[in-house]
């Protein structure tokens, strides 16, 4: 990975150059950095206050603390205003403070009309710099976090649940290996004092990048800089992560749950990220194989378009959090990445067939590469499609900040520059180098999990039936291959776990 370029902006520089400065180099790891993107005439102002801290910074035994601590900033009162008063003041401005917490990064977001910028910023600033840490806010937010883990995630959103199981499985014993919301056991034990201690330790200058975009007044950057300078200097050293563990064969967890549809997520760690030269070639390959929510995706064509089995089937070259939304989100950067496949829920009767399909297509991709004509069309597609990635102010700012993380001046511009130079062979080389079809973590949510385990272990043929009695001959011929495609599933590599057991404690439950 390229060295992470760190930037800083001093108050003195800003005062003189507020309208021209985009960002400045960081002179000390203990000072904050900033990204000010002025957009003349734009009536909106967007904020992204990025913190280089995430769930990996949860102390052992206090998993979920980062999320809880930052949630109290975003959804609780400041020292001067209760949360009720904040909501009342935000309401006429039609604004709020958003938060996302990831493994190594968290971000507070907000967008406001310039009419209301001063009023909004005064409140926003106090929420972050002078939080109230009130007991009633703590209780409310902690209860919500517990309910999310115990009831919502496990019972109400199987697609996301599948992705979280994959994460637990892929990162057992690794700092990434717990959900950002923690576990029921650790979360229940957290106190207001834990939250305050986390804030004091991590909400410090060197961990923060201030991002602002829009038609703000000329002196606004200098005021923000001055306000955030009140924070303690210092930084949390970036965690030195252990090597990611590659699966040995097919390592499977099946969450048993009464459901008519099976959710599937699978993948493996990769030693590549947006910082690497090879990423651009790999991106073309994975886009061809499974572009998110686009008919370009080979998996989408094979599973949905040709056979009508489910709503969509996608693959990702790195961590991707969007579900129904089309474009990638920003500020979810990680040191270590993984390749994944997401098969959206399909009838339980087709689960074995679809799993075979996904793995056989992956095998063909790895062994045969991407066909020349698909390479050309995918490259052209990406050159055009990525021009739509940054449309809103918040997206423009987010991409700019992520570019920094991965050592690019402007990742999307770099992409436009690099892509035309990438050749078919580059893509196939990247596939061979980074992808494989034999060693995967596989997370499944289904009913009668034991019988599915038996079918997997025994390689039981899994023919598919169609509503259409006149399916094209070539599809039926291909089905004959899919339905008996052998998967090397060892019984000791399949764990069947009751769905309700997840998130009680760290890692994959024993049963």
């Amino acid at each position: 990975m390229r060295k992470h370029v760190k930037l800083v902006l001093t108050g003195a520089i800003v005062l003189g150059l507020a309208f021209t400065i985009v960002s400045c180099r960081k002179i000390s790891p203990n000072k904050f950095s900033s990204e000010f993107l002025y957009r003349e005439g734009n009536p909106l102002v967007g904020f992204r206050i990025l913190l280089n801290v995430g769930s990996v910074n949860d102390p052992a035994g206090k998993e979920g603390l980062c999320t809880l601590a930052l949630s109290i900033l975003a959804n609780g009162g400041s020292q001067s205003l209760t949360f009720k008063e904040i909501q009342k003041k935000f309401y006429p401005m039609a604004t709020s403070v958003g938060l996302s917490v990831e493994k190594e990064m968290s971000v507070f977001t907000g967008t406001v009309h310039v009419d209301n910028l001063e009023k909004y910023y005064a409140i926003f600033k106090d929420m972050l710099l002078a939080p109230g840490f009130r007991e009633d806010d703590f209780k409310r937010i902690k209860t919500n976090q517990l309910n999310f883990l115990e009831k919502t995630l496990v019972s109400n959103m199987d697609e996301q649940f599948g992705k979280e199981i994959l994460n637990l499985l892929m990162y057992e014993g690794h700092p990434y290996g717990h959900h950002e919301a923690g576990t029921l056991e650790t979360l229940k034990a957290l106190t207001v004092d834990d939250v305050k201690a986390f804030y004091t330790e991590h909400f410090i200058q060197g961990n923060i990048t201030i991002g602002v975009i829009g038609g703000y007044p000329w002196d606004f950057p200098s005021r923000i800089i001055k306000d955030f300078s009140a924070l303690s200097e210092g930084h949390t050293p970036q965690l030195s992560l252990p090597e990611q563990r590659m699966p040995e064969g097919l390592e499977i967890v099946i969450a048993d749950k009464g459901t008519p549809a099976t959710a599937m997520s699978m993948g493996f760690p990769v030693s590549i990220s947006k910082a690497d030269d090879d990423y651009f070639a790999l991106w073309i390959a994975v886009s061809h194989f499974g572009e998110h929510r686009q008919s370009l995706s080979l998996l989408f064509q094979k599973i949905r378009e040709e056979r009508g089995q489910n709503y969509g089937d996608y693959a990702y070259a790195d961590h991707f959090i969007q579900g129904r939304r089309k474009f990638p989100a920003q500020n979810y950067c990680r040191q270590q990445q993984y390749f994944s496949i997401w098969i959206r829920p399909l009838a339980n009767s087709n689960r074995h067939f679809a799993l075979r399909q996904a793995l056989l297509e992956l095998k063909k991709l790895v062994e045969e590469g991407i066909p020349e004509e698909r390479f050309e069309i995918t490259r052209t597609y990406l050159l055009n499609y990525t021009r739509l990635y940054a449309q809103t102010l918040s997206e423009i700012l987010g991409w700019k900040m992520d570019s920094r993380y991965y050592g690019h001046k402007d990742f999307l511009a770099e992409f436009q520059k690099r892509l035309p130079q990438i050749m078919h062979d580059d893509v196939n080389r990247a596939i061979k180098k980074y992808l494989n079809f034999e060693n995967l973590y596989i997370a499944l949510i289904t009913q009668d999990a034991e019988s599915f385990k038996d079918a997997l272990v025994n390689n039981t043929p899994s023919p598919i039936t169609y509503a259409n009695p006149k399916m094209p001959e070539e599809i039926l011929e291909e089905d004959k291959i899919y339905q008996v495609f052998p998967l090397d599933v060892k019984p000791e590599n399949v764990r069947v776990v009751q769905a309700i057991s997840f998130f009680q404690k760290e890692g994959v439950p024993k049963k």
Partner: protein
Amino acid sequence: MKRFISTFLSLILLFCLTPLLQSSDIFPYDYKVEVLENGLKIVSIPLDNPHIISHYVIVRSGSRNEIEPGKSGFAHFFEHMMFKGTKDMPREVYDDFLTELGAGTNGYTTDDYTCYFVVLAGRENLEKVIKAEADRFINLYYDEEMLKTEAPVIEGEYYASVSNPGRRLFEVLRDTAFMKHSYKHTTLGYLQDILDMPNQFEYSQLFKKRFYAPDNTILLVAGDFDHDQLMEYVKKYYSGWEKSNYTLVTPEEPPQTKAKRAHYEWPSKTLPRLVIGFHGPAFSDEKIDKAALDLLAETSFSRSSALYQKLVIEEQKCLSLYASFADRRDPYLLTFNAVVKDEKDLPYVEQEIIKELERLKKEPVSEEFLADIKSNMKYSFASALGTTDGIASSLAHYINLTADPGTVNKLFDFFDKVSPADIQKMCQKYFVKTNSTVVTLSGGKTK
């Protein structure tokens, strides 16, 4: 208030370089409306935002149009079939065309309309998109086998949402509250109808003939293009599309005469949910009822309202609480929704919502709070106009309702005129017990 409007508009007008400078309209962009001889309406919004063009085809047919028994979910299913291509441009060719273009494209179906959008970069690509889109709307081709293959995708889409209790609650509410109108079912449709979709080839042809016609469709284009050039392309490619002349008559919903109640037992652990629905008016930019009710929803159930603060923030009985008075072409439901933390609090939360509605019948809301609400609605709308696609998608919703892009300005004019007394009157008119449907959902059994 007047000063606010003036400041607000002066700033929002900066957003575009072709503002309606002399106007106080909430939608600040110049637009042109033209109608072809075959009835196709074109709404054109040229913008100075570089590169991006949003191309929306709005077919004014949604699940509202599914008036025959056994056909629920068909508008949404037909949306899927619209991606099957034509004889000149089969699906694979159409897919490759959009792929090479790198366009953001998809469709969505609502109760009242189905929308097909292509968001593309580069005005040099506009003609190609119009040509391809016109081709599939005029010459869509699929056979029975293709339909049978696509139908199970809807089943898959149903399964993708099957673990969402909020969706189930909503299905039960509509099914319970409506007796005759096609709003009785959701856009996705009943599962038994979804399972029968493979057998509906003939009906699909009828559905296309009735609704996929220029006199039921609006083309909305926003972004970096020249209007005259756009019209040249539209006339060239869309003029051959034949009118339908079909008139949809949706079943009239009889007045509800007694309170209804239903409960759904969720098969696993979940936070309990409650929804209280009242039959309300259709969207209108001519009567004040709907505008007043929209403001009422915010008055008592927005995050800054007293009831929200009490139930969500102070007593912490609810995870969320909100009111939803969706805009629909026919009379629809006004709903009050709560996700409750403990099942034993469901009756209490229900009682508190009803108590608040009773209070609103007797006490007018304060002028100050009403001003805050109006401010919120305007800034919310302005924020949605931050991108070319935001402008197109925001306007698509309103165009669907009345076929007139001016309706959004009329609606916001109404918002300005609504008084506390208007809101009180609407409460008294609509929130009566015999007009209510309460649905609860809770789950305990786990597996």
